[in-house]
């Protein structure tokens, strides 16, 4: 019998024990405490691994492994649903557990990928997870058939029971799991017809929620280890600057201070007892920075740099169809508009943090990172040890939104400090100020669009010049083709609208402000630009903005965009009367393999008070794993998207970020929350993403409603800069 120890589960047990309360402080464990505690708990916690994904205990408890990470989107439940559907098991006996990163690496990446991002968890793993469930079911059924010496074709699995149909003999999964585990894993087991699904597509309660309402969930920041010390960090306020000197002696006598660790562009204070001690000492620490060569950069100078990108005679071409010159020459009406969107920070509620323990034998890290394989690689590289000696303990994330996928400098920092004190666990926590001022920002973008309409109001040509910072030019250079960031041009280069003539260009304008993928990446600012401009065109053509879009979406490639647009317009009652002063705006966008649209009802009173009366947002993501999670993601997108539209703005002065915390980087609260109606229109036949697509149509739908209500066209965000604020 194959018996696989379950690394992640053991680390979970260890952590739950560790956070149990003050008791811990009285326990002294040897330096390899983590390893020993895990070893002890592993003996009590082994289950036959039927396949790498499915473990079944003799009491019929089923553990389904999750390779991606839960950061609020519900994949800790949705991914097991994919396996369980094909496994034909009793869902009430299923538990989810994280797949171990070290085991994944030891076993030749058996869990495929641990990356969580790009709205990819469900859609990219659905096939291999359903296959894994079907394979395990076949193995269990085969084991039962062998036990009874009957043909496997006479045996059926359902609800964790295998029945020999002719004799009605039954055996539970748990009773044959050990035998099943010895069988070869079938490679291409047949999968159910989606019409036969009983679990997928039905709302399921999330596994992670009960512990999240009692405070029992241990996020990375809640890691508690014997003898742990705390670390606070100050990073050079100006991006690209470096540390010149610190007067470490000045704080040597402060409470708890253990040491000061200078890094190239930051300084870390380590203290005993509490992060409070470390942070207090850091605040008192005299630090001298070399601000480097960007200390003169401001939002104004960045805007000027973007403007130069707009004015360049030529820029790399991202799309070319037809002949725009003759279309413009024969146009009855032409339109031109510039749109702008600012930098944005993610502001995950759990600040960046990492706990690291460096010993001779291994390096353990706990971090809120979206890709534990990358975390392992960064840890190994930083600690200068083989990756086989790294254990990344997987934990739920207190938000991700793209902040902690490609960019996990907090892991590097914590490991560097931990390496200076072998055997002592170090917990590094960034203050909120460090988080806001040292993010990986949604890039700034300035876009000039032009369009031509013929005498009958038919759109004939569309040009786009993007002057935008590239997220990927440094970290993923293969995404840059002939000068074009192929992610940055999405929404334009792949727009479904059937303009007969199109010409689009991309002028990369990289600044010293570090960019990063912010929830929905290009599909936040670009849809605001595109869908607002389409609205301008509709009004210029004297047409209804919904019908104008419909007319441009009559090709077969655009049929799903059209269908979700129609569904949302219908749910919103696009043509129904509204109270005096209230108007509607509409927008549609495909992204991450899904199709979304929104209708927003808004009004603005005489003093600039904006009221959002209603948000209707819909999605066609093809197939749905857990519809309640899809709904929640769209509800959440409304808050994330409208917060950005209303308030979101990171500005630069003297090379550094001006905002520092939630008082000046404002978030929507419950009082500002409009009524939201989610329209789920899954049409099947494909799997689309869910975590990000809902973001896309919100800002333009709102701004289009504001135009309808006031005649004021919003061409830059946030709305607070237009004297518009929530009532």
């Amino acid at each position, binding site marked *: 019998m194959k018996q696989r120890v379950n690394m992640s589960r053991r680390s979970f047990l260890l952590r739950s024990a560790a*956070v*149990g*309360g*003050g*008791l*811990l*402080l009285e326990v002294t464990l040897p330096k390899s405490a983590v390893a020993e505690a895990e070893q002890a708990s592993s003996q009590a916690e082994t289950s036959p691994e039927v396949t790498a994904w499915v473990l079944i205990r003799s009491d019929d408890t089923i553990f389904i492994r999750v390779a991606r990470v*839960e*950061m*609020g*989107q*519900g994949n800790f439940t949705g991914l097991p649903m994919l396996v369980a559907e094909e496994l034909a098991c009793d869902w009430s006996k299923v538990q989810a557990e994280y797949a171990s990163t070290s085991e994944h690496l030891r076993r030749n990446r058996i869990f495929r990928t641990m990356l969580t991002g790009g709205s990819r968890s469900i859609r990219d793993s659905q096939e291999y997870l359903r296959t894994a469930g079907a394979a395990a079911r076949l193995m269990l059924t085969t084991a039962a058939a062998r036990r009874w010496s009957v043909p496997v074709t006479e045996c059926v699995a359902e609800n964790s029971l295998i029945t020999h149909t002719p004799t009605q003999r039954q055996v539970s999964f748990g009773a044959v799991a050990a035998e099943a585990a010895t069988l070869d894993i079938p490679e291409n087991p047949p999968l159910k017809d989606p019409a036969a699904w009983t679990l997928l597509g039905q709302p399921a*309660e*999330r596994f*992670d*929620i*009960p512990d*999240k*309402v*009692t*405070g*029992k969930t*241990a996020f990375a*920041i*809640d890691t*508690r280890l014997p003898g742990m010390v*705390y670390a606070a960090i100050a990073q050079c306020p100006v991006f690209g600057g470096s540390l010149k000197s610190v007067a470490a002696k000045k704080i040597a006598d402060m*409470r708890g201070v253990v040491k000061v660790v200078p890094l190239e562009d930051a300084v870390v204070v380590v203290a005993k*007892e*509490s*992060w*409070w001690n470390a942070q207090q000492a850091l605040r008192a620490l005299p630090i001298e920075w070399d601000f480097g060569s960007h200390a003169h950069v401001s939002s104004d100078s960045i805007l000027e740099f973007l403007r130069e990108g707009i004015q360049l005679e030529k820029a790399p071409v991202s799309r070319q169809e037809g002949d725009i010159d003759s279309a413009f020459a024969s146009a009855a009406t032409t339109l031109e508009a510039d749109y702008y969107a600012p930098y944005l920070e993610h*502001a*995950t*509620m*759990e600040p960046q943090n990492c706990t690291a323990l460096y010993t001779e034998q291994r390096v353990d890290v706990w971090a809120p990172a979206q890709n534990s394989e990358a975390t392992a690689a960064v840890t190994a590289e930083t600690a200068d040890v083989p990756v086989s000696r790294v254990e990344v303990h997987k934990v*739920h*994330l*207190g*938000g*991700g939104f793209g902040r902690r996928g490609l960019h996990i400098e907090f892991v590097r920092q914590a490991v560097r400090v931990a390496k200076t004190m072998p055997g002592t666990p170090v917990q590094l*926590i960034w203050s*909120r100020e460090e988080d806001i001022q040292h993010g990986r920002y949604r890039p700034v973008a300035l876009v000039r669009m032009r369009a031509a309409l013929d005498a009958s109001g038919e759109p004939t040509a569309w040009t786009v010049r993007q002057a935008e910072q590239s997220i990927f030019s440094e970290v993923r250079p293969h995404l840059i083709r002939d000068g074009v960031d192929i992610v940055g041009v999405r929404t334009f280069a792949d727009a479904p609208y059937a303009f007969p003539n199109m010409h689009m260009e991309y002028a990369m304008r990289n600044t010293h402000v570090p960019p990063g993928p912010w929830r929905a990446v290009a599909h936040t600012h670009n849809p605001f630009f595109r869908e607002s401009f389409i609205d301008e065109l509709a009004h210029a053509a004297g047409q209804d903005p919904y019908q104008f879009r419909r007319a441009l979406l009559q090709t077969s490639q655009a049929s799903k965009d059209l269908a979700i647009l129609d569904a949302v317009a219908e749910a919103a009652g696009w043509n129904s009367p509204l109270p005096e002063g209230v108007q509607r705006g509409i927008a549609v966008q495909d992204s991450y393999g899904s199709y979304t649209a929104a209708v927003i009802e808004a009004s603005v009173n005489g003093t600039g008070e904006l009221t959002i009366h209603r948000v209707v947002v819909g999605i066609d993501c093809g197939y749905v794993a857990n519809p309640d999670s899809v709904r*929640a993601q769209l*509800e*959440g997108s*409304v*808050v*994330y998207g409208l917060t950005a539209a209303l308030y979101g703005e990171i500005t630069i002065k003297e090379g550094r970020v001006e905002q520092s*915390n*939630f*008082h000046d980087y404002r*978030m*929507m*609260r*419950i*009082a500002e*929350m409009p*009524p*939201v109606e989610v329209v789920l229109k899954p049409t099947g036949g494909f799997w689309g993403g869910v975590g990000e697509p809902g973001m896309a149509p919100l800002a333009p739908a709102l701004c289009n409603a504001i135009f309808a209500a006031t005649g004021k066209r919003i061409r830059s965000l946030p709305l607070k800069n237009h004297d518009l604020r929530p009532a």
Partner: protein
Amino acid sequence: MIALTVNGTEHSVDVSSDMRLLWVLRDILGLTGTKFGCGMSVCGACTVHLDGEPVRSCVMPVSIAAGKKITTIEGLSTAGSHPLQQAWIAHQVPQCGYCQTGMIMSAAALLKKKPQPTDADINEAMTNICRCGTYTRIRAAIHTAARKVAGGE
């Protein structure tokens, strides 16, 4: 030494008097259900009860809490049985969950004062920040819990 009563248990902690209550709870007493979000009393992730009143523990010097009754999420109920915690599960409120313990503590203080809160009451009391955007469900869950308490369940 500072004497604290947390969730009915008396503790004596050797910390500086200006240390913020949040860090005493998290780092000295190991009660990690109370979260650090902003450190300046804006986001509410650190909300606990002081003699029944909701306070932002990230800015509260521990000396002020001495001698008072401190309740954290760990002490709100046994095994998550508080009507709000039950309603939070019924409505599947949390996404990432990081802010939710603070949300629940704010809501629990509201329900004590106003057992049948209106939407306006909720807007006024629930100033905590949630980045995942669970506000719609939070509102629904508070109303559900209020109804449940009123119904004597």
